């Protein structure tokens, strides 16, 4: 996002927008939303559902989502499972290593809010949003693959409505 913000300041003179900027906007958004490379990164139970989603039956590849092992190649990280305090610092680091623009999907109750471990889980981080910003929360324990796909579509909607120049007006 920081990257886009910097771009913002450059094209501020088109404050009211024009056709070209809007079209470019659309194109860039389309590119970002239809090629979200996901980081190969599973945490817990939800990771199995995430794998099932990328396997043949549900097929993430339809949406242009392919797993990349390195955070540097990834656009999106799916926090799939319980985040423990020992792991939290590592996730923060991984997030920092990803190049902008980057998106986070928090998958499952555990990473949304601690899930079933909220009360006695002394070693569980109660919600990944305490350390990194989250774009889409997918509820469920674990969410079905359809739910994850819905989350991805929601994220695509979000990206579709992003704009490199309109943002500063609001």
């Amino acid at each position, binding site marked *: 996002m920081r990257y886009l913000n910097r771009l913002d300041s450059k094209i501020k003179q088109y404050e009211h927008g024009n056709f070209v900027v809007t079209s470019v906007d659309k194109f860039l958004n389309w590119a970002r939303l239809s090629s979200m490379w996901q980081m190969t990164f599973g945490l817990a139970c939800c990771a199995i559902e995430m794998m099932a989603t990328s396997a043949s039956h549900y097929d993430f590849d339809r949406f242009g989502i392919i797993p990349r092992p390195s955070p540097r190649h990834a656009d999106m990280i799916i926090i799939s499972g319980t985040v423990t*305090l*020992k792991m*939290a*610092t590592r996730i923060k680091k991984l997030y920092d290593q990803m190049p902008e623009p980057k998106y986070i999907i928090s998958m499952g109750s555990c990473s949304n809010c*601690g899930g079933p471990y*909220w*009360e006695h889980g*002394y*070693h569980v981080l109660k919600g990944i949003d*305490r350390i990194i910003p989250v774009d889409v929360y997918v509820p469920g324990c674990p969410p079905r693959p359809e739910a994850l796909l819905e989350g991805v579509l929601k994220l695509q909607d979000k990206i579709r409505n992003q704009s490199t120049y309109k943002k500063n007006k609001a």
Partner: protein
Amino acid sequence: MNSNEIYNLLKSFFPDAVIDYKDDKPVEPYIIVSAKEIDKICLFLRDEENLQFDYLSCLSSVDFDNDNLAAVYNLYSFVHNHKLNIKVIVPKSDPVIKTVSSVWNTANWHEREAYDLMGIIFDEHPDFRRILLPDDWEGYPLRKDYKVQEFYNGMKVPY
């Protein structure tokens, strides 16, 4: 061999270290031994011809009562197909047990876990540090009087 026979055999070899034998249903029978000589007893159990307990199924730590911690060893023999439970009770003020990781390799991680979660110290363990929790964690979570720390590394721990 059943547990009672094993108890008698052990008692004859280690009269001081073997403390008690409990067999009241539905509790599985177990033998209580001293923390100081558990390693010798285990070595004996493993190598004695009639016993040959070559498999440590499980090693559990228990917050036994207000003053004591316990470690429970569930043993199994592939050769003779018999089981045995051993219990070691130590006071909370000085929870030190001799390690059995030289007898069974399994014990290595189990003992580290018992230390990590319950705070039982295993003497002469080759690689003694926390295993599950981070190294700078405070307290032993499975003790009944455990109070969770408020912050860890700047992250709030309770909900």
